[in-house]
């Protein structure tokens, strides 16, 4: 029983139930700017757009190209390799053509990796969609 106590002492205490969806995303926007909002659960970190030195997969944000929206390179407000809490990614838009009357639907593809201090989740893909029209603010 002493051996068991020693083993248990040497291992993680206070493990919490894994959150298998620790990053929530929300996409909003206007014809001049998209805002991608990430909410990262407590205890978790999201690897950022800045490629980490030692291997984790960095965040990828890709706005699918259309006739209206050429290739865009999103930026983040910090150079930190990991992100926690709440964060906004600003994506400036410069439309190549006027908005169509029926609105413009854009797709944003995300690929990211998140870890807590106890577990890591596999690389995750998400697809977000937004329709912009002249009333979008």
């Amino acid at each position, binding site marked *: *029983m002493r*051996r*068991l106590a020693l*083993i*248990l*002492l*040497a*291992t*993680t*205490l206070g*493990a*919490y139930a*894994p959150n*298998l*969806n620790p990053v929530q995303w929300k996409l909003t926007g206007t014809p001049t700017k998209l805002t991608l909002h990430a909410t990262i659960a407590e205890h978790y970190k999201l690897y950022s757009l800045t490629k980490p030195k*030692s*291997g*984790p*997969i960095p965040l990828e944000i890709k706005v699918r190209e259309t006739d209206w929206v050429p290739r865009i390179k999103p930026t983040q407000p910090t150079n930190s390799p990991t992100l926690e809490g709440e964060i906004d990614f600003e994506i400036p838009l410069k439309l190549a053509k006027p908005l169509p009357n029926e609105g413009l639907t854009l797709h944003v593809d995300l690929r990211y990796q998140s*870890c*807590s*201090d*106890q*577990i*890591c*989740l*596999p*690389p995750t893909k998400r697809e977000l969609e937004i329709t912009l029209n002249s009333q979008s603010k």
Partner: protein
Amino acid sequence: MKLTIALLTLTLAASAQTKSPILLELFTSEGCSSCPPADKLVESLDKQQPFNGADLIILGEHVDYWDGSWKDRFSSRALTNRQWEYAKYFGLTGVYTPQLVVDGQSEFVGSSGPDAKAAITKAIKNHKHPLTLSAKATGNKLHASVSIEGLGSKGATLYLALADEQATSQVTRGENAGRTLKHVAIVRSLTAVGDLTNSLTKELDLNLPSNYSGLRVIAFVQDRTTGRILAISQEKL
């Protein structure tokens, strides 16, 4: 004095007979920075066998979804798929590492000693069916004989796993770059041998894995509906 020795012998024999074999499956990866503490916990449990009523049988199952920066030489898609099967059994929306699964019935963060203790203590109370396993290696072939009777299951699968006794890796890239990682009971192959409901006797010939040093042969029966491990036995070559 003689009586004391006899009683002690009887007690030890009874203790050995009543030990419940329990399967611990660690889903891990050399490319995952959270995994080394779990590898260490499992290594300790394997070596120390600290539960009086349990014979802990370990399977280190290396998943392949961390192979981007560092290719884990023990990883396979088949083991990743097995972890996803467990996700379905447990009603989880995804997988993670390190994850420890005990007897197919409990899952938790693989580095959590308290969770391991609770799950193993619970698993000791569950009845297992006797399973007879014998295995012999000749050249690069393994001959195994497995026999189980009176299972009474609605549907179960017999698996045969071959696992390296232990291995050490010097990781040079990825999240664990610069670390020396030690593993035990690393799965080299996991074969679904056949389906059964009640009794089964099977003779098997398998290729031995390359470059193994010390091999464990583990046969176990898993309920296909619940994921529960119904019978298990291990031979060390």
